[in-house]
Structure formats: C-alpha cells, structure tokens
C-alpha cells in the first residue's frame, strides 16, 4: 500500500504538535545515542561512574541469586556425599599413606629452594591478594566478555589489578565503584596477556578470541612449533600480571599461532582472588613547567 499523503493525526493543533515533538525527541535520542557511541568507542572508560552506579544496585541482587542457586545446586551433592562417606574414608586413608613419602620430599625441596633463593638474593615480588570475592554476573547478552566482581574500591580493588582463580588467570580489573568492580576476562576479544611456555620459557602473547578460547601467538622467532598440551603461564612482562599464573593450554599443535583453552573456568563462579599489580605503576610524568607550553 502506498503511504498516506497526509500524516497529520487530525485537525487538533495540539495533537499535531505533540506528535511532531515526539518524533523530534526520537530523532534527537538517536543523535545523542550516536554521539555517546562515538565517545564510548574512543574513550571506553568515560562512563565508568554511570555503570558503577547501576552496578552498585544490581550486584547485591546478583549475589543473592547466587546464594539461592548454590543452595539449590548443593542439595544433590550433599545427599550423595552422605551415602558415599564410608567408602570415601577408606580411600582417603589409603591416599594419605601413599602421599606421605611425596610430602616429605616436597618439604625437603621447599626448604632447599628457600635456602637457594636466599643465596642468590631473589627479591620476591609482592603477590599478596588484595581481596577474595565472587564474580557474580557477566555481560551474557554482549559479544564482549566482562564480569562483575563483588568487591570494589572500598575493599582495596584498583584499576588494572589482575584477578585469578586457583586454576589460573581470570582477567583484569577495568573499572571500580565503591563495592563492585568490572573485570575484563582473558577470553575477551580485546584482552592481550604476555605469557611464556612452562617447558622452555618461550615468550608468547595470549589474546582472547571471543568464543571462549585464546590465541597463543609466538612473540619471538618465526616458525615455532606449539604442541598440543603446552601450558602457558604469565611471564610478568609489562609489570601488570605477576609471573607464573597459569593462563592457557594449547589444544592443537600448530606453528606460531595456536588455539588454546584457558585454564581458569569462570563458569564455576567460585571465589576469585584480586592480586596486587606486579610492579607499582610508573610515576606520573613530571609536571610541565608553565613556560614550556608557550611557543
């Protein structure tokens, strides 16, 4: 059908004007949206305060839902634990006996290691945890991979701090509000982490792909074979991530660029540790003297 020639809602001036103004509002909204979009493309951190304000409200709800979910999910485990407790007991006793020798050996090695480190005066980097908190929700509707951490600047979390799980690196703090923080996960398509191979220290870069996996790119000579099963840990280059946190395991052998699976699984939603940045951030550049700017 052809569009009607007359788009007026009637003879009432008031109705005509209010319809016109409504469309002015719609188009104006689109233009403001486009301007905001440009700003967020070139200055992604510009809206941290706004997002933080809403995260302060939604994060407690998410945490509450997490408790509910965990409560429901733990029921089957608790029941089966009750049934299996006696057989488990026998198995664990046997395991303790088997492990005794191993523990003794590990203790000796640990002591020896400490002594050797003292001898070569290795400075232990500050890898203390700032806080342990939960990752409560994530940007599940978006192609970007952000998660919300249930701790913020009041708990000592700062921009740029690494976040890890017992299994490996989870990501890096991007924005903080008083009680929440926004974490860029390692699988995000814009996340890049300097890593090295555990086997021989080969330097590489772990870049997120966006589909839950990582790309491992060799950062040294060309034609490096990456074998399936190679484990990559953070190298400490750049000074953000402390060294030796597991990051990824290569899935298929390839040259130079291989697909790898992250070792930390954020889906499990257990506690995550926020660590200090490995090295303190560089001091701000010296203030320019007032005379320098004039030319």
């Amino acid at each position, binding site marked *: 059908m052809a569009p009607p020639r007359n788009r007026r809602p009637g003879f009432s001036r008031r109705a005509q004007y209010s319809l016109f103004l409504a469309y002015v509002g719609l188009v104006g*909204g689109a233009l*403001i949206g486009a301007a905001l979009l440009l700003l967020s493309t070139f200055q992604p951190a510009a809206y941290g305060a706004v997002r933080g304000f809403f995260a302060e409200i*939604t994060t407690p709800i998410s945490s509450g839902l997490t408790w509910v979910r965990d409560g429901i999910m733990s029921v089957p485990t608790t029941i089966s634990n009750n049934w299996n407790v006696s057989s488990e007991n026998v198995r664990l006793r046997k395991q303790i006996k088997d492990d005794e020798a191993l523990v003794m050996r590990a203790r000796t090695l640990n002591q020896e290691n400490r002594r050797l480190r003292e001898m070569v005066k290795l400075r232990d980097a500050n890898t203390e945890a700032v806080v342990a908190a939960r990752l409560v929700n994530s940007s599940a509707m978006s*192609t970007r*991979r952000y998660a919300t951490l249930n701790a913020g600047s009041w708990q000592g979390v700062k921009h740029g701090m690494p976040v890890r799980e017992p299994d490996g690196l989870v990501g890096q703090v991007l924005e903080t509000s008083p009680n929440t923080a926004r974490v860029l996960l390692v*699988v995000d*398509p*814009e996340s890049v982490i300097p890593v090295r191979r555990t086997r021989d220290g080969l330097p590489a870069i772990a870049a997120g792909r966006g*589909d839950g996996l990582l790309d491992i790119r060799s950062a040294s000579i060309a034609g490096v074979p990456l074998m399936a099963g190679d484990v990559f840990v953070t190298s400490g280059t750049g000074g953000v991530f402390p060294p030796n946190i597991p990051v990824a395991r290569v899935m298929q052998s390839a040259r130079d660029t291989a697909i790898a699976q992250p070792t930390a699984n954020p889906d499990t*939603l257990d506690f995550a540790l926020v660590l200090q940045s490995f090295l303190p951030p560089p001091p701000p550049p010296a203030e320019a003297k007032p005379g320098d700017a004039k030319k």
Partner: protein
Amino acid sequence: MRRPPEFIPLGRTERPPRSIWLAPLSVALGSLVTIVPMVATIPILPPFGLMILLGWRLHRADSLRVWAPAPLGLFDDIVTGQPIGAAMLFWTLCFLMIDVIDTRIVWRNFLQNWLIATGAIAGCLLLTRFVASPFGAHVDTALVLQILVSVALFPLIARFCAWLDRDVRET
C-alpha cells in the same frame, strides 16, 4: 477477554491503559535479565530488552511513547555492558523503520510482525557486534546462534506483551 463498556461521564477522559508505565518497566526488566548469576564465555542470553520492546511496539503502535526507545536503550547499554549509545541508536532506528513499515503494510498478520522483529533483532545484534568487538573476533558463530534463539523466542515474548496489555478495551 471482553469487558462490559465502562461508563465515562462527559468531560472526563478515559483512564489511560497501564501500558504507559508497564511497557517501559517490562523492557527495563528484560534488560536486567543480564544480572542472572552466571559468567558466560560466549554471548548466550537473547537481548530480552529489545525483544520485549519490539513485542509491545508490534502488538500496539501506541503502547509506548514515540521517543521511548532512546532512554530505554540507554538503560540497556548501561546494564548489559554494550558500548554506551549502541542500543540507544539502534533501537531508535528500529522504531523509525517500523514507523515507515506501518505506512506501507498496514494490516499485518503475526508472521509479518515476526519477520519485522527478526530483521530488527538481527540488525541490532550485528551492528552492535561490529561496534563493540574488533572485526577479527571469533564471535560470529555464537552471534548467529544468539540471533536464532532470539528469533525463535520472539512469539513467546509477543504473547507475553499481549498478555500484559490485556486491560486495553477493544473498540
């Protein structure tokens, strides 16, 4: 459900339908579905805010204010982690397109509405993907799945919006 006509004395206006506040509220709650306790590694949730918005708009043209998609889109951007301004712009463009379609195809059946919603959902998700993620990111398979799931869920959302809007008197 048809109700007996209400007696409205002269000089009084009709009580406005509850969609005036219920429609924006339901769209905002749809956007807030993203706070479910789950850390996803791929885009896994359909864009419920957009789907509910389209459900209301395609169910009844005057259920929302004409300018409603701009503030609702801004709220969606803030809570879902998309770049701010993306939904604000693309949702508004969807409404403008639907307004144009309204003048061309006036009497539509649900299949046509579903087709319009498919175009709007796919368009918004794809445009937002190109704005949000770098061009070479491997998110496209997951994105296609997300679009398919959203389109398949749209009839349910449309029924839900119609059910929320059931207090409007048929004339």
